[in-house]
């Protein structure tokens, strides 16, 4: 069944619905025959890279921002993570950041610029401020907007034309998505993290497997995760081709939101929680597709290739193109191995890295830094390895410093940086050199993603930290550390 397109009240009375369908139907502004549904957008997040042309469009048409009070901007993608008090050295980046500042001032949009305590990666900032809540529709000109689905919001990335559309109308015309349940049941073995779950999911369904779907992550292994872990999983839904990922809100969610600056208060809180509790998928609701994963079979995952679906357990070997099931797959493996400079049959644990990047909207939250610090405490990174630790937001940075994590990183030989996207996409000076190899807690191992010619292995924060210590892809267990 596709996402329900009947009017909300009627639909609720008759058909058991999935969470995505409920959120969808509660936001329908208008439906017309043969037209996409017009959906209301509760929160629009903005950053410097995908917005300038959208504001230009508004200006050209003489349109205001319809709801500045539902719009918030931050600087994250191309800003430096050192010398943040000085003007941005790269003139092109500087112009883009200044353009965002001018646009936000002109259109009355709240901006958290570099140097502000609320600045950070857009997907870290929203949840941290309590702006991300269950049952909302949230969009941003960034594909990892799926992160916010961890709260039971319907959150997805949009292009610049759509950014302009939302600025002008606070709505988007959208065709209903299909729904897919990703059931992860059972107990996670020690040392297996949220990142390993999502890398295993993408390896299983492929980079196109979620195309056209909203994924709902369900099951006991998902319920046992913290909000940070759920965000890591929803964040990478897009890497499976899905527009959005969701997790049902529960007490873990409510506890996380309560008391944050934009959380509902007093009577509003009670009403909100009652509504949030009503959002979970009804028993008997039908998903268009279902996937089952036994949590007990999982182990730390790493990627070996050039898309996030090319991942395997750390204990396995670089695959052989000869084992591919189709010509297209064989070509894809050959291209990936040539780019990554890897030989079939090599144990993944033997792969030596030059740089380890700990950060991004996937794994740049406080819990991620704590996990890595636990592994690094009292240890030093391998000679010749560079470890870059980049908090997801300024508040994460301050929190880490108040817990002394920065000192653990520095003592281990790491660089401790300001908040931003940094080496996740290498738009700022933090880049891999051509041919350099990284273990990275980010979400994309595409060719050149972390710098032209750079080679990326996606890993969890725990694996990143252990890898920095040994110099080759490793898990904390290899160091005798329980994580």
């Amino acid at each position: 069944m596709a996402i329900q397109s009947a009017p909300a009240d009627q639909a609720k009375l008759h058909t058991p619905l999935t969470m995505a369908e409920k959120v969808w139907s509660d936001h329908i502004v208008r439906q017309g025959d043969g037209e996409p549904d017009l959906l209301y957008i509760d929160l629009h997040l903005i950053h410097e890279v995908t917005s300038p042309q959208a504001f230009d469009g508004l200006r050209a048409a003489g349109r205001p921002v319809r709801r500045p009070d539902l719009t918030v901007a931050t600087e994250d993608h191309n800003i430096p993570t050192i010398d943040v008090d000085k003007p941005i050295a790269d003139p092109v980046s500087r112009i883009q950041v200044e353009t965002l500042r001018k646009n936000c001032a002109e259109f009355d949009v709240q901006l958290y610029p570099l140097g502000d305590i609320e600045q950070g990666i857009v997907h870290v900032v929203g949840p941290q401020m309590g702006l991300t809540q269950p049952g909302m529709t949230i969009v941003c000109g960034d594909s990892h907007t799926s992160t916010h689905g961890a709260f039971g919001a319907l959150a997805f990335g949009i292009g610049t034309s759509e950014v302009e559309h939302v600025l002008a109308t606070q709505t988007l015309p959208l065709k209903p998505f299909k729904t897919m349940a990703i059931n992860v049941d059972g107990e996670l073995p020690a040392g297996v993290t949220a990142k390993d779950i999502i890398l295993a999911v993408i390896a299983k369904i492929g980079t196109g497997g979620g195309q056209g779907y909203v994924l709902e992550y369900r099951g006991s292994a998902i319920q046992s995760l913290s909000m940070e872990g759920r965000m890591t999983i929803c964040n990478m839904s897009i890497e499976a081709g899905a527009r959005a990922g969701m997790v049902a809100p529960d007490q873990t969610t409510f506890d996380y939101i309560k008391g944050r600056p934009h959380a509902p208060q007093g009577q509003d809180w009670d009403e909100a929680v009652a509504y949030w509790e009503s959002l979970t998928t009804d028993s008997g609701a039908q998903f268009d597709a279902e996937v089952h994963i036994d949590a007990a079979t999982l182990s730390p995952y790493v990627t070996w290739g050039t898309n996030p679906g090319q991942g395997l357990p750390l204990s396995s070997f670089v695959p052989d193109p000869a084992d591919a099931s189709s010509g297209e797959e064989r070509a894809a493996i050959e291209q990936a191995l040539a780019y990554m400079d890897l030989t079939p049959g090599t144990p993944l644990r033997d792969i030596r890295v030059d740089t380890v990047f700990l950060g991004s909207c996937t794994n740049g939250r406080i819990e991620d830094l704590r996990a890595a610090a636990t592994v690094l405490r009292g240890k030093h990174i391998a000679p010749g390895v560079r470890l870059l630790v980049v908090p997801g937001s300024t508040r994460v940075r301050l929190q880490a410093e108040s817990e002394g994590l920065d000192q653990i990183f520095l003592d281990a030989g790491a660089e401790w940086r300001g908040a931003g996207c940094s080496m996740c996409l290498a738009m700022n000076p933090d880049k891999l050199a051509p041919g350099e190899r990284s273990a990275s807690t980010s979400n994309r191992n595409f060719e050149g993603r972390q710098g032209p010619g750079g080679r990326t292995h996606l890993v969890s924060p725990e694996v990143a930290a252990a890898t920095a210590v040994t110099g080759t892809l490793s898990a904390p267990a290899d160091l005798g550390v329980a994580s």
Partner: protein
Amino acid sequence: MEAFVTHTGTAVPLRRSNVDTDQIIPAEYLKRITRHGFEDALFASWRNDPEFVLNLPQYQGVSVLVAGSDFGTGSSREHAVWALQDFGFKVVLSSRFADIFRGNSGKGGLLAAQVSQEDIEHIWGIIENSPQVPVTIDLDAKTVSAGDFMCEFEVDDYVRWRLLHGLDDIGLTMQHQAAIDSFESVRPSFKPSVR
């Protein structure tokens, strides 16, 4: 936006699956704040290779890109669509497009036409043998023809209607202001506001 009814031009085979938006336009080029002038950025790192298909003499002046499956995965950057258009592409054919890329194409007037992988392989064969063969995409009939070969393609009905008439979404939505007003008037008070 200009209406799109039919297009005839020459085509180039891109024999790769999972061409992500970081390949279509590397992040470095996303710092520009204009909407045009991205032709130099298209497939920037691959174009350093003289053997890359877009550098071959027989594929100069092409306007149809015939790509492998899962084209346009990754980032939401609409710059990928702009770069393809600035380079001269009017149509991309693939057996599967990433959702956001396909959406962005429809907004900007680039036709992302979905063709079966079997038909893609067929067209690859034709344009590799005769690079100059005219390829025609008829949006009204939803067909692609190359020489004697013809196949159908899939495209969202609503996007097709908008492209055929050259209509833009914001203008269409602006006609429904009253519906938006009335939706807003009953939004619950517990929904967060940035202020």
